[in-house]
């Protein structure tokens, strides 16, 4: 029997705390597979955000650090600048990166820090109970937009990739999704490319935005959540390779 698919050792052999059908599990696995395939496990340092993925260090078998909410790009800067030969990535959710951490990600990009940022966009604050995030869709019901998000009151979904792609300091920006097997394969390719750039010492920040399902707080069954990404989320967050 030929093995077609096996679990990567970079992903620790333990159950995760994520909800059934949550995209974090998939994203973690892609990240772990890329680290294994690029053979950089022993010189990679990962940053876990504050959010559902704060416990990423329990799952990813690389040196990990857990930092204050939204500050990952600043912490990553401190790490990468003092350890240029290490591979530093930050794994952040939409609340972490696009809400409280906006200044940090913008300036890390603007300073062309040689970092890889995995940005999980699931349109809500997961850990704290499904509140509105900067990337919540118009009309989307959340714990803090019970009547659906309205542009007048709560503004528009924030398109981080497009913004960062404008900055000369970013070298690669792509938005992917986890909504189907082909999409997931594409997301893995993007993650791998982002890490490859950092390994090659390409100047500038690489960011992979990943549209990820949150069945629990979208109040959708996992398979339907995947469909919601394809049909709804991609309208505000088009899947595209925006730069590099």
């Amino acid at each position: 029997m030929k093995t077609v698919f096996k679990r990567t050792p970079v992903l620790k052999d333990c159950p995760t705390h994520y909800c059934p059908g949550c995209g974090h599990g998939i994203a973690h696995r892609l990240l772990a597979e890329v680290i294994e395939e690029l053979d950089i496990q022993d010189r990679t340092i990962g940053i876990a955000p504050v959010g559902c993925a704060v416990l990423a260090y329990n799952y990813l078998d690389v040196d990990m650090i857990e930092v204050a909410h939204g500050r990952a790009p600043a912490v990553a800067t401190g790490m990468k600048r003092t350890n240029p030969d290490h591979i530093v990535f930050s794994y952040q959710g939409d609340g972490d990166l696009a809400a409280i951490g906006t200044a940090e990600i913008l300036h890390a990009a603007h300073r062309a820090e040689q970092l890889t940022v995995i940005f999980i966009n699931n349109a809500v604050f997961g850990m704290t109970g499904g509140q509105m995030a900067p990337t919540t869709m118009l009309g989307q019901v959340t714990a803090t937009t019970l009547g659906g998000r309205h542009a007048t009151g709560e503004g528009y979904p924030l398109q981080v990739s497009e913004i960062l792609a404008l900055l000369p300091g970013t070298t690669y920006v792509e938005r992917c999704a986890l909504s189907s097997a082909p999409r997931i394969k594409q997301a893995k390719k993007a993650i791998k490319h982002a890490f490859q750039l950092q390994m090659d010492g390409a100047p500038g920040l690489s960011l992979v935005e990943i549209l990820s399902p949150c069945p629990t707080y979208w109040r959708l069954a996992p398979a339907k959540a995947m469909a919601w990404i394809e049909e709804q989320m991609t309208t505000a967050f088009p899947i595209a390779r925006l730069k590099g």
Partner: protein
Amino acid sequence: MCGNEALAEAAVIAGCDAYFGYPITPQNEITAYMSRRMAEEGRVFVQSESELAAINMVFGAAATGKRAMTSSSSPGISLMQEGMSYLAGAELPAVVVNVMRGGPGLGNIAPSQGDYFQATRGGGHGDYRHIVLGPSSVQELADCMPLAFDLADQYRITVMVLADGILGQMMEPVVLEPKPRRPLPPKDWALTGMKDRKQNIVRSLWLAEGALEELNYRLEAKHRQIRDNEVLCEEYRIEDAEIIVVAYGIAARIARAAVDRAREQGVPVGMIRPITLWPFPSAQISAAAETFRVFLAVEMSCGQMIEDVKLAVEGRCPVLLHGRPGGGVPMVDEIQDKIRQLTIRSGAV
């Protein structure tokens, strides 16, 4: 050399690997000086987008075992408080310089000691302490840096150097030379890549039942150890003193002159000058309060350190204040008058 540049050069000599800072008066000379010197030494300098980002950059560099520092002034240090709580929770060594200015709010850029509470009680969330050094001369300010880095590495704690606008700006001759490092524990906890060891995790999140309580007890044990071993304080002419001035930093420089003048007029006055503001020299002050004396706290604030003095004296003697907040600087004659009033009242003369 001005105080700001002296402390910066001393940090470079002490082996500072990375400096992260943001412009704010009255400490701009540190940032400017470091931008030149760190480049010359091939080390890391980053001007961050905010003090909040700066402390988190320190957090990142420190987590990989590097000697990292930042400097700012009062409002900037307020922005760093979240980061300092995380540094404490993750037990990371770091050096933070606060060149205090008048507050609260935007305040002014005059010297002040109004951040004493924030520094010694901790402005961040949770039960934590960090070491606070209170130099009172340019030489001592410079000497604080190697000491701060050593203490930080030895105890895996943040060390704050609490200076003020005068100390930072004033110029004095200073001797800058490498100091021998203390024996320091290896940083095997640092994030250096898993080459030939298991995964290291730097974190301050402890969700398991009782785990955070356990961490707090560990931190408390560390704090006790620091209290027992690292207190620094100067006792100046207190043997026969019936009035004891307690002052630190630049206020102590001024008070010293007042003490000397009063002595010339036969007033039995002395001074206790805390150098480590945390751990506070409570034992020394308590010992001084064994015999009846009048304590006079001289501060550039409405009276913050005075509370630590009162705690140490425990009501055995009166503890009075001569304080000038908001950038006001007590003059020598003011302090002298205050001492004279105390002598008349206590009938010492």
